[in-house]
């Protein structure tokens, strides 16, 4: 009986191609919208995660001051770190891939007639490892340069473009504050960070050079630590906190006068935010899917009135109520599934285009495709039922008399 009813429903859809395609338009748009929103949103989430992990994997950032208050959030009064703190972390804490003490300053860099405001970071070669930098050309610092505080530097890609364009800068000098500094290496570009700032706009110098000749103190501004792959950043974080409390003689009831930021936590927070946005956009799109369902119901209801005579003929010929109900329900479900499939195709195409335009990775989420397909089938059942019941309950005598 089901087979015959499906056959009848399919013939009915084929008989009314125009009406059928108009009926499914809402579903097509709804499904396409849901898939596009979620796929592009997933891509954006992935993009943010990628960008942040380019800062350095398993990175922990240790700074004096109480908690993260954005740039310049250091609490006045909290003592700065010394090199000994970084050395203690290297010595006493296990599971570390690298420890880089950092002093940074904003400076004017001058080369010839060009003038550029940038950041300098004073650190060791560990900095490259911890922050995930690779050299595009030249070399890292040697021991003599590090110990002696030599006037050498490694420049970021932005500095290279700013001062030298396509020319080879290695061996040239640039002036930073009062010192003339020889360029020994160039870093591979990383592009803008997830926060929108240019990661490549900085100059790396030996720690001692910056301390002595630019900052004029032996303070360390921050310590970047990277945990080994597989090591728990949470455990490392707790270990560093314990060690520093000890070293800084923080009382039992006092809060930390420093903070350790786990980049993975920040990744989680940021990807959580984009994921929330994706969900919201998806939900808005899902509403349009619902509206599409109501569209199906409207057209089915109109078509029940329009097809009253046809229903009368079927009932007179010997169709049972349940068969008429099933016929209309199957018509609705077949239509909405068909709309769902077209919507999936359009949605995939649109999200590939959207991901390309927004320069985010294109990640096909099979789950959301399955869900939106099932949802569109569900919409067919729910919104097809009412018109179908109306059709099945028609009185054949009245229906045959209908003009």
């Amino acid at each position: 009986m089901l087979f015959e009813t499906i056959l009848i429903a399919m013939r009915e859809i084929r008989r009314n191609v125009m009406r059928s395609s108009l009926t499914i338009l809402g579903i097509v748009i709804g499904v396409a919208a849901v898939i596009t929103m979620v796929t592009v949103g997933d891509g954006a989430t992935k993009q943010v995660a990628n960008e942040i992990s380019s800062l350095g994997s398993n990175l922990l950032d240790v700074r004096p001051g109480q908690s993260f208050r954005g740039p310049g959030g250091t609490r006045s009064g909290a003592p700065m770190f010394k090199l000994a703190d970084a050395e203690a972390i290297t010595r006493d804490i296990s599971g570390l891939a690298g420890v880089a003490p950092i002093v940074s300053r904003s400076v004017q860099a001058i080369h010839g007639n060009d003038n550029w405001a940038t950041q300098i970071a004073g650190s060791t070669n560990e900095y490259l490892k911890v922050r995930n930098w690779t050299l595009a050309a030249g070399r890292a610092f040697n021991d003599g340069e590090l110990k002696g505080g030599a006037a050498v530097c490694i420049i970021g890609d932005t500095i290279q473009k700013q001062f030298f364009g396509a020319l080879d800068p290695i061996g040239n000098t640039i002036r930073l504050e009062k010192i003339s500094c020889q360029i020994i290496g160039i870093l591979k570009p990383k592009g803008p960070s997830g926060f929108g700032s240019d990661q490549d706009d900085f100059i790396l110098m030996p720690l001692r050079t910056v301390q002595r000749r630019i900052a004029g103190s032996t303070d360390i501004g921050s310590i970047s630590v990277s945990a080994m792959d597989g090591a728990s950043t949470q455990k490392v974080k707790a270990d560093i906190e314990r060690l520093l409390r000890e070293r800084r003689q923080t009382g039992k009831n006092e809060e930390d006068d420093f903070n350790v930021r786990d980049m993975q936590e920040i990744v989680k927070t940021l990807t959580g935010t984009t994921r929330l946005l994706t969900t919201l956009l998806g939900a808005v799109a899902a509403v349009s899917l619902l509206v599409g369902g109501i569209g199906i119901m409207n057209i089915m209801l109109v078509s029940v009135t329009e097809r009253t005579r046809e229903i009368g003929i079927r009932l007179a010929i010997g169709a049972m109520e349940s068969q008429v109900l099933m016929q209309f329900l199957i018509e609705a479900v077949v239509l909405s599934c068909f709309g769902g499939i077209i919507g999936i195709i359009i949605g995939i195409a649109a999200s590939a285009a959207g991901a390309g335009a927004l320069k985010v990775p294109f990640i096909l989420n099979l789950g959301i495709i399955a869900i939106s397909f099932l949802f569109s089938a569900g919409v067919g059942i729910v919104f097809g039922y009412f018109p179908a019941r109306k059709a099945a309950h028609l009185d054949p005598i009245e229906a045959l008399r209908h003009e």
Partner: protein
Amino acid sequence: MTTPPILSESNSPVIELHDVTRSYGSGTAEVSALQGIDVNIEHGDFVAVMGPSGSGKSTCMNILGCLDTPSSGTYRFKGMDVGKLSRDQRALLRRHYLGFVFQGFNLLNRTSALENVELPLIYRGTLAKERRQRAKKALASVGLAGWETHTPAELSGGQQQRVAIARAIVTVPSVLFADEPTGNLDSARSREIMELLTSFNHDQGLTVVMVTHDAVMASYAKRMIHFRDGFIEKEESNRGR
């Protein structure tokens, strides 16, 4: 559920109406369309039901066609009390034993003649190959061989009514109900349709019950029943038929 009700084959008459009434509405608004009628129709009979509008003949046809049930009295179809059947059971009775031809043809538009004729067989669950063969045969038997792919819009009124007759007889019903089958046709087409019905009645012993206004059409029948004001006014037989 979808199997046909088992009815006695030999039992004659096919149709027995006993003191059947049908009224609509209730209380003071009650309108009586049939006021107690008795009709017996034998196998192989050809009955013309006549009468002016509002005489109760359409109501009677609806009851005979198992589309409606009596308010009181009994209707036995092949011995089965139709008044006691559910809506679905009556649908099955129609599916397996009755055929319908209407004044307005009532074909599915934008659907080929063949698919229209196949429709009752689909509801019966006949397999595709057999279904197609039987539908083609039925179309041939009404003189429409070669017209299988035409839709109703591409057929004349007379041809549409032939398709409707093919659809009614493709299931080999016990009784064919025709409600003003020539009402929308000119006299030449009407004669063709009546000759077709007469030949099915004569050659295959198909029982035909036909409602008509037209005395000329009624003259093709073996027997005429005249309705007036919900009663049977008179019954007469056509000699020579």
